[in-house]
């Protein structure tokens, strides 16, 4: 969920854009990272771990820990917490280490 009213902060979200999550159309704002836009839509699972296939989510949100790796426009291992959404972007859950096409 997005914060609409805050006692101190104002959020300049910029324009609304559409992107795709596992093929499904989603809305977000141009100022948002992939993780922020997914979170706002209630999506917390971003991929599965390589060995035990356990669900993986966000941890640090600043590009430090690699917990948020996703496949973006066909490219695996993108840190979804620091990359912004773009119109038409294809974001997918990543399973394991990802494959290079």
């Amino acid at each position, binding site marked *: 969920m997005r914060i609409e*009213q805050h006692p101190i902060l104002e959020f300049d979200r910029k324009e609304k854009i559409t992107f795709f999550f596992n093929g499904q159309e989603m809305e977000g704002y141009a100022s948002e990272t992939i993780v*922020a836009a997914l979170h706002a839509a209630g999506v917390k699972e*971003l991929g599965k771990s390589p060995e035990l296939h356990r669900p993986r989510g966000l941890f640090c949100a*600043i*590009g430090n820990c690699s917990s948020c790796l996703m496949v973006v426009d066909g490219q695996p291992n993108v840190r979804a917490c620091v990359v912004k959404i773009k119109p038409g972007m294809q974001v997918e859950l990543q399973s394991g280490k990802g494959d290079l096409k």
Partner: protein
Amino acid sequence: MINVEILIVGGGPAGLCAANAAADLGASVLICERDEIPGGQLVKQTHKFFGSRKQYAGDRGIAIGDFLLDEVINDPKIEVMPDTTVIGIYEDGLVLAERSEEIIKINPRKIIIATGAAEKFLTFPGNDLPGIYGAGAVQTLMNVAGVIPGERVLMVGAGNIGLIVSYQLAQAGVETAAVIEGAPTIGGYLVHASKIQRLGIPVRTGYTIKEAYGDGKVEGAVICRLDAAWNMIEGSEEDIKCDTICLAVGLTPLTELCWQAGCEMAFIRELSGHVPLIDKYLQTTNPKIYVAGDVSGVEEASSAMVEGRLAGYSAACSLGYGLDTAPSLQAGAMAELDELRAGPMSDRIRQGVEKVEKMVTKGGV
């Protein structure tokens, strides 16, 4: 290849102040900042800072960040490169940075590392479930992106960060089920604890998290009491329903670049991890490299700013700038640091700094 006199890695309070100080003495400076917006931890802090007026205490963290950034942006001797991560410092002094998947080569004469700190993690069953976040991540989501992390949070850790982030969650309209703390007393300042207790958020000392559970994401946690030796007391388990668990269990210096550059390092518990050995001018054992801020010991924004200035003066002076004025400016910054660290809340930091000093005068680890 970019040639520059002083490269600053990290645009938090330490890096920004270092840039200002070095440019004031006449050096040309490049700041590489990994994030889109420089300011480090400050850009996420909605509360008024504690400390002394000289380091802007009383202002909100975000305002301090804006102010420091303005000074830097308006200085023609300083260039700021946001979205740029420094990834390597080589033996011959060459530095590589990454910006939008492009590799940039930088050839600096001096480097000030001001990379801050990384969050610590805790081990417990289920600790990898989506919905378990570092306190910094919760702040980034909530205060930068304007997105709430969940509906109901269990906060682990009652140091200043745990207390402040619980208050920030309330500002964003998110419920905190409880703040739990393993130690018998809270670690943070009483003002922050009272603020959240007034909101009715329970702060429970002597408790830890035993387990997190949920199908695909966090649905709850089991907490339990600890005895004096930090062992879990059987039978004291309690179930807490929550969709988010926020870990605020401390930070550790982010020192990869110091290791890479061959700086001599030592584990100093009081400074929260491995830190580079430095002299009083903040120069490491690699004469090309200075450090400032949390990277040389997790402390506060106030001391990070003063260390930044000191490192900036020292690096500029080593290149021949401000030879007449630098010594008194350096002495002034050192006195300010002593003053900041004089109180009883700084006992630990003081002990840590003294340990480093001793190791350095003995000539190594």
